[in-house]
């Protein structure tokens, strides 16, 4: 009886929790990155930039979501003066795109909106 009553109680908790279960919005990220994924090569390494540092918990979540959405490409956070080729940007504040692009020497290929931008870096700065 205790176990059954506990099961009923737990099912109510589950019902409430299901309303906020996808707290990192991983499902939404799949749609957010869809156009960028279509434009990128099917595999290989891709640079990653963001206005939120990857050392920050929110930045880690943003990088993780981007990595999952764009796998099997492998994302590597961009470093100043290192790496060329495709770079994907995920921005919490899209108005930061221009300054981040300038900081890393990136040229914009396509801005898909919703904070997603595809860049190229041809030359190191």
């Amino acid at each position, binding site marked *: 009886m205790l176990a*059954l009553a506990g*099961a*009923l109680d737990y099912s109510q908790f589950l019902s409430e929790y*299901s309303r906020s279960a996808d707290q990192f919005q991983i499902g939404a990220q799949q749609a957010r990155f869809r156009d960028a994924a279509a434009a990128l090569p099917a595999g290989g390494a891709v640079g990653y930039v963001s206005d939120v540092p990857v050392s920050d918990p929110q930045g880690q979540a943003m990088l993780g979501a981007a990595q999952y959405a764009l796998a*099997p*490409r*492998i994302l590597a956070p961009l470093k100043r003066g290192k790496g060329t080729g495709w770079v994907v940007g995920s921005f919490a504040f899209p108005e930061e795109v221009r300054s981040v692009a300038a900081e890393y020497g990136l040229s914009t290929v396509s801005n898909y909106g919703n904070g997603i931008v595809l860049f190229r870096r041809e030359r190191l700065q």
Partner: protein
Amino acid sequence: MTGFLAFAVPLLAGWRLAAAALAGRTIRPVWAARVFEAALGAGAGIAISSIAFFLLTLGGAASPAAILVLDAALLAAGLLASWRTRGRRAAVPSESAAPPAFRWNWLLALALAAGFAVVLYGLISISAANPFGEWDAWSIWNLRAKFLAGPGDAWRSALSALPEKAGMHPDYPLLLSGFVAMVWKAAGDTAPWVPQLTGFLFLALILALLGSALAALRGLTSALLAGFVLLASTSFLFQATMQYADLPLGFYYLASIALLLLAESAPNCLALSGACASFAAWTKNEGAAFAVFLTLALLAVDRRAVRRYLTGAAPVLLLVVCFKVFLAPASDPLFKQGAAGLAQRFADPARYVQIGKALAVEAYHFGQPWSHPLLLLAILAVALRFRIDPAGARGLRVAATALALTFAAYCGVYVVTPSDLAWHLQTSLSRLYGQLWPSFLLLVFLTLDVPRATAPAAVLKAQRKPKERFRK
């Protein structure tokens, strides 16, 4: 459709292979034997197909067609093996079909099914709302599956040694990611239903394996009571929605231990026990520790038993060693820390206090306060009292030693982890409890007495005839 076939065929193949391997063994009652072999076989099928897919990938031959051919070959092998042993299956005596003595078992079963239906509905709602699982699902297990299922050399990224990919734990073995990747590769997409269904499948397999093993070793009433305790283990049940490897690991621990205990009447079960321990090592690093501890515990009891056990364990353990040495060297900071840091953490008493507190807190949160599984076990212990079947005492001791050593190793890792201890405990301890919980329940119910009025005649008869274990 292709994805569904790639998912289902390994389960069917494993079922037939397990049925063949267990054919003629004296597992009673017959329904328990059938459920046991189906659950064991489905888990074994997942492990075998995951390994085969990994080898195909390594050889550059993984493609949807190759996966379907592989599945067909596995199924053919299973059907052939079970056809060749069909005569032995018919030899099972009719005594095993003896009805349980407890007349209200049907009511217990009905109540248990209703309880699980209610909880499963809630868990499925969570999974539907969060189809990509929890953090480690999309940052480790399913991410690595996406790499493995990718085109060309993309699979190498699952083992990437890039420092920024250390959080993906590229040194973790590949049972879960490999199985999910195999289905994804065959289907040509990365639909979330595959890891979702895999999580729930392993929960169902644990339920089936625990119930059938207890029904065979202790009677149906014990199996049903264990089901109620599992139903109250809410933190454990939630793991079905997470899409992590802890539930599969818990399944392989349980399978290995259940087979070890069944080896009393069927010594060849020891080889299957070893195989399941090696599948645990292919699931997570903790599984390798478990396989070693089970070997050591067996070694202390019976060297001949160890030989049989290692016959089953060796092939996959060898694969795991090769994987670790040649493909995915340890990248975890735990294995890279210096001796000075290790000694400092080892000698810090505050860490032990912190770990002790966390052990208690997580144990408290393992269920609802007033229907807590430990409270239910305490009530059952008072009501039923303890009585260990002398015939099974040695197997119990071996299994309990292996589990205790595994748990001690978990605690040891917390003592020396270079990661932030509070974070490490908070993000992993409940899952570690979950890994050990089904096996722990099996052992507890084997030490609890069978309600006298409820014991099936076959169980009571077996209890009166203690016999030597393992030595056959």
